[in-house]
């Protein structure tokens, strides 16, 4: 090696440096290898890692997605088995028992399906579900789901940030809140005969919550389209709030100026607040929220696990509530 001394720094002789043309050629060769026969095995490996992380149950139509790169969007925890995710649901439109929706939701017709966007937006309109499916690239996200009743799951959802849709409909300066309206059709939903809640089911978010990158407009789970009992064909998933905040089978998204009243607030405002952020320190009036039971994982005799602030999403969403009294705004 020919070395030239230069005030303590060692330079390679120009003859030792790989000529640009040769270097470029090598890169090209490597790329070709990766794309070609020699690389196909490795490429497949990479694709598998980037695409379907969770084995498909092969029950419904596939929904392709790439694993999300959004911070906090992919927990390292074990996904709850598909059988439990789809057999233990609170979806009162199909019955109040958690086993009811899986039995009754087959009557839900998910095509044709339109989501109406209205209120304080410059571009209101009716979006066909198939257009919504193509609106933005699908991401797979592994979220914790904490139910207000004290149990939790880990679900591999598929969707894209709700913000993608919100940006396209251009909210006006008056849009402070977003309201989500669930389908209420007696012909398809036997649970509507009961007056357990006021129908249709309505939920809402503050605008900054709705725009947060973790708020997911969701179309699938476990690599496939949503099962009916999980809120097909499109729902919202807000992972740092109790599950009931994430409206299912959405037919209307309304942008409003005043904080909308949710179905659960109408039923019992003292028990279910508008925010309903997961918070181990603020108990439900009738039970503690300090711990939770992970469905399909914690055995019946296991001690319950501690619940995390904002369901473990505090680093991502904590600043949304800076300075707020979370006991008052429960």
């Amino acid at each position, binding site marked *: 090696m020919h070395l030239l001394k230069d005030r303590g720094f060692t330079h390679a002789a120009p003859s030792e440096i790989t000529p640009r043309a040769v270097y470029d050629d090598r890169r090209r060769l490597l790329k070709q290898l990766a794309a070609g026969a020699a690389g196909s095995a490795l490429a497949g490996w990479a694709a598998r890692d980037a695409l379907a992380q969770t084995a498909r149950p092969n029950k419904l139509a596939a929904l392709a997605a790439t694993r999300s790169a959004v911070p906090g969007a992919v927990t390292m925890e074990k996904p709850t088995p598909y059988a439990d995710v789809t057999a233990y649901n609170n979806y009162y439109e199909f019955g109040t028992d958690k086993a009811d929706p899986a039995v009754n939701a087959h009557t839900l017709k998910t095509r044709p399906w339109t989501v109406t966007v209205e209120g304080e937006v410059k571009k209101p309109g009716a979006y066909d579900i198939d257009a919504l499916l193509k609106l933005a690239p699908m991401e797979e996200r592994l979220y914790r789901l904490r139910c207000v009743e004290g*149990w939790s799951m880990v679900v591999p959802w598929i969707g894209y940030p709700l913000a993608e849709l919100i940006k396209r409909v251009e909210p006006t300066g008056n849009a402070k809140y977003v309201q989500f309206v669930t389908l209420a059709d007696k012909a398809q939903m036997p649970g509507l005969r*009961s007056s357990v809640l006021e129908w249709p089911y309505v939920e809402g978010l503050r605008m900054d919550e709705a725009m947060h990158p973790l708020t997911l407009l969701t179309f699938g789970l476990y690599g496939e389209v949503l099962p009916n009992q999980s809120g097909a064909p499109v729902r919202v998933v807000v992972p740092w709030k109790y599950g009931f905040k994430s409206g299912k089978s959405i037919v209307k998204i309304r942008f409003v100026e005043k904080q909308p009243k949710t179905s659960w607030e109408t039923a019992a405002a003292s028990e279910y607040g508008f925010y309903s952020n997961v918070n181990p320190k603020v108990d439900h009036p009738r039970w503690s929220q300090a711990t939770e039971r992970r469905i*399909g994982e914690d055995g019946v005799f296991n001690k319950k696990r501690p619940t995390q602030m904002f369901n473990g999403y505090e680093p991502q969403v904590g600043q949304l509530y800076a300075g707020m009294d979370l006991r008052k705004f429960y």
Partner: protein
Amino acid sequence: MNKLLLLPATKPLLFALALGPFAWYLSGALADTLGPNPAEALLRGTGDWVLRFLCLTLLVTPLRTLTGWHALARLRRMLGLYAFFYGVVHFLCFAWLDMGFDVAAILKDIPKRPFVLVGTAALLLMLPLAATSFNRAIKALGAKRWQALHRAVYAVVLLGLLHFFWMRSAKNHFGEPMLYAAIVALLLGWRLWRHFRSPAAAVTQARAM
């Protein structure tokens, strides 16, 4: 019917039958066949059985009086003890599965949640009844005092109902508690009616029987 009820096998048979739900839940818990949330299934299931056994216990006297199957009386103690047994199991499910036997957490939790407090009160009220259920206790107390004490079962069942209603509060979802309330209303209403109807009528009826 009375002869059937007096058969030596009747009591053991009832004992085994009444143990059935417990055996079913226990085997379900061990074999993990109680669904996605077995702890919840156990907690709710055992609670249901407390109310069912309380109703059965309260059914004995009206049924005996209306049908003349007086031998039913010898089964009442077992039914009542089973109500207490399922109450204890129900409480253990709460203390163990829900609270992980964390005594400090349980003590903090009970007064904070009124429906838990009501349920606990009902169970505690059953304790002296279970403790004085054997023959020697009846003798020691004297029939009158024993009977007065055991009228506490009316309070137990009403507290149990309140516990159930309170658990379901907030949701307009009272179908099941309403059903139990209707049954209890019938059982206790019949007693009230008997108590308040004219003594003369009671005497004539007693003579007629």
